[in-house]
Structure formats: structure tokens, C-alpha cells
């Protein structure tokens, strides 16, 4: 009986710790950004993600982003938004800031 309680408690603790570590790595947030002009939609993403963003207007000229809706990690949301656009991003996780750019225009 004692060992059963011990087993249950330690397992519970281990699973809790595992789930905490996963949450730290990737927190899912609610996003709702319509498709549209990248220079506008990326700022909306930034506010909803709570992440700072920086981009060159030249890189984003004429580029539109995809709609995102629902709960996901900020990186998943941004990947979905800029898919097929040629844009890529660099996420500096320590400072919670993202640069979005078009590699072939630099």
C-alpha cells in the first residue's frame, strides 16, 4: 500500500515537472489575425503574441500573409502566417523579439 502511494505521488510529480518544462518551451496563445498586407498583419501578430517585432518595409513590399486563428505557439502562428511568402524570421527568445525578413532581397 505504501509503495503504491509512493509510486503514484512520484509519477504525478514527474509528469507535472515534464509538463511544466514543455510549457516553458512552448506556450500556446490565442491568435486571430486576418489575411492581409504583411506590414500590418505582422504588427497585429506581435501584439497578440506579446513579442516585439522588427522588419524592413522594403522586404515586405507587396507581400500578403495568411490568416491565423486559434490556439498555438507564437512560432507556429508566425510560420503559418508567412508560409509561401518567401519571408523567414529570426526569434531571439531571450529578449522576446522577432525579425521578419526576405533573404533574397538583402
Amino acid at each position, binding site marked *: 500500500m505504501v509503495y503504491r502511494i509512493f509510486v503514484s505521488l512520484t509519477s504525478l510529480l514527474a509528469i507535472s515537472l515534464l509538463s511544466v518544462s514543455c510549457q516553458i518551451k512552448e506556450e500556446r496563445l490565442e491568435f486571430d489575425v486576418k489575411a492581409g498586407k504583411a506590414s500590418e498583419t505582422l504588427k497585429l501578430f506581435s501584439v497578440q503574441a506579446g513579442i*516585439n*517585432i*522588427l522588419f524592413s*518595409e522594403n522586404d515586405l513590399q507587396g507581400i500578403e500573409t495568411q490568416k491565423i486563428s486559434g490556439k498555438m505557439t507564437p512560432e507556429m502562428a508566425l510560420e503559418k502566417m508567412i508560409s509561401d511568402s518567401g519571408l523567414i524570421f529570426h526569434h531571439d527568445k531571450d529578449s*522576446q523579439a522577432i525579425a521578419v525578413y526576405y*533573404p533574397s532581397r538583402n
Partner: protein
Amino acid sequence: MKKFRFDSEAWSAVEQAASDWVTKADRGLSREEQKEFDRWLAQSKAHEKAYAEQKWNWEELDRLAGLQTAYGSSEDPDLLIENRPTPARGSWFGSRFAMVACAALMAGAVFAWIGLQIFDGDAGQSRNENVIVDRIQTRDLEDGSTLQLNRGAEVEIAYSESRRAVRLRKGEVNFIVEKDPDRPFFVEVAGVHLRAVGTEFNVRLHSNEVEMIVTEGTVAVQPSGIENMDSISNEAFIEVNQRVKVDLSSDELVPLIESISEETLAQELIWQPVLIDFENVPLSEIVDEFNRRNPVQMVIVDASVNEARLSSMFWSDNINGLIRLLESNFEIKAEWGEDGTIYLFNNS
């Protein structure tokens, strides 16, 4: 047939390169690596496609690692046998084994968690060791009140059932106090006592002076060394757009109250972080705004860095983030002067 083999090999090489980039990106790219990666990515659509696929695979591994499933465990040949032997539940081996296994699992989880913290921290530091500017800290207290601590500020919180007390030991703090008539809110700073009920005010401790500005409601000031703050008497009341200063070097602590203009008020509180929306501006405009709001100053050395028009949504205290992105993605190099000034050069 020959052509097919050639394409297949070429594609494998691209896949391998993409896989290498995904691994490097996961641990963080240096400035040179970032440039090399950009060049590689821009070389061909196949590179983009391979990178996207490899990145998806990499993330899928992460996702699978997080699942608690039995996939991959060994077969159980006795699974369908009737009256299969079961392990003796109370046996010495069974219980000890379960304990050891669970303890190992627990220890593994703890080490994994600690490892994740250390890995994340180290990754950030190794990328840019020079640039460390603390951000403004916000502390949400249990009663709904909020403290915004300017860089270097230190406080002690002492809440009880009958009252809420905060001691400002060092620096500057903005207090947004939740109303609670049954639990008055006190601040003690270098022997000067403040009492607030549902209000917002900013307190700064200088080397020989206490300064307080009220931005909402009223705050009572009692500049004395009394032990029991409940028995405060002869308070001076400070209202919105008023500032009080108490000279700590004089024998008697006397509050000097003055009215201040909106401009002065804004200037006094400019350290508080705000989200700034820049649209299609040269870097100099962003730098000017950050300089206005932070003690750390940036100087553009090469005027050519102003050629790019930038847009951003940035918290005004996130200097680290701005510098790191400029360095890694916008061909700008930052160097720190001895006085802490950050010099920005064209690095293309």
C-alpha cells in the same frame, strides 16, 4: 536513369544541408552563420522547401518526445495467454523496482527541466555577451496592486490581514494601488512614510532625497521615523500633478510640495515602458525614441545604416532585443563604449 540518380543525390545533399541548418538554428545562429544561412536559403527554391521539411521533421521529433505513449516498447509474448503469470505485487523486487524506477523518472524529469533552463540561458548569453540592459520589472501583488520597478530598484513587501506595507530600499518604483479601505497601503522609504488608498504614484529614492509624484488619487506623507505607521499624524496630502520632495540630509524631515506641469510629469515618468509603433522610419528615429526613454544611449556612427526604412512594435525598455535583431538580421554591428553608450556601425 543516370539523371534520376544524379538528382536524387543532389537532393540528398540539399536535405543534409537543410538538416544541418535546422540543428544550428535550434541552438541559435551567430551573425556570420545567419548571413550564410540567408545566402543559402536565397540560392534556390529547393533550399527553402528542404529547410521547411527538415524543420517540420525536427519539430515533429520534439512533439513525439513529449508524448507519453507505449510506442517503441518491447513486445509482450505472454499478452494473449490465459492465466498469464503476474508479478507478485508485494514482493521485495517488485516494490523496490517500482520505487527505483519512479525515483529515476522523477530525477530524470528534474534534470531535464534544469537542463532546459541552463541550456536556454546559455544559448542567449553566448550569442551576445556584451549587450545586457535590464528591462523594467513589473510585480503583481496578491491584492491586485502593481509595482513597476525601474532598473536597480529594490523593495520589501510585508502584507498582513490588517494592512499592506512596502519598503523601498533602493531606486524608483511606480505604485498602482488597488482600493481596500480595510487594509490601508503604506510605503516606507528612508524614514519617510506614505499612505495611499486606491491611487497611483511614483516614488524615487535619491542619495539624499525622497521624491514622490501623484498621478491619480491622493497620497498622505509623514516624514518622520515613527515605528507604528498606523499612528501617523500631521500628514501632508499630495494630489494629482503635485510633487513632494523630502531632503534627507537636513535635521528635520520637511515635505516640500509643489505643482508640476503635464510636460514635467511626462518627463519624470518617461522611464515607464510603453509599446512603440514605428512605421516606415529610418533607424535614427527609432534610436532617438529609445534614447529619450532609457538611460543607455545609442549612437549611429555610419549614416548609411539609415538607408533602410524600418517598421516595428517594440517595448521601449527592450534595448537588448532591438540590438540583437539589428546585429543578426540588418547588417549592423553594435559596440559598447566604456560609459555604456552603444555605437552602431554598418556591417555589410
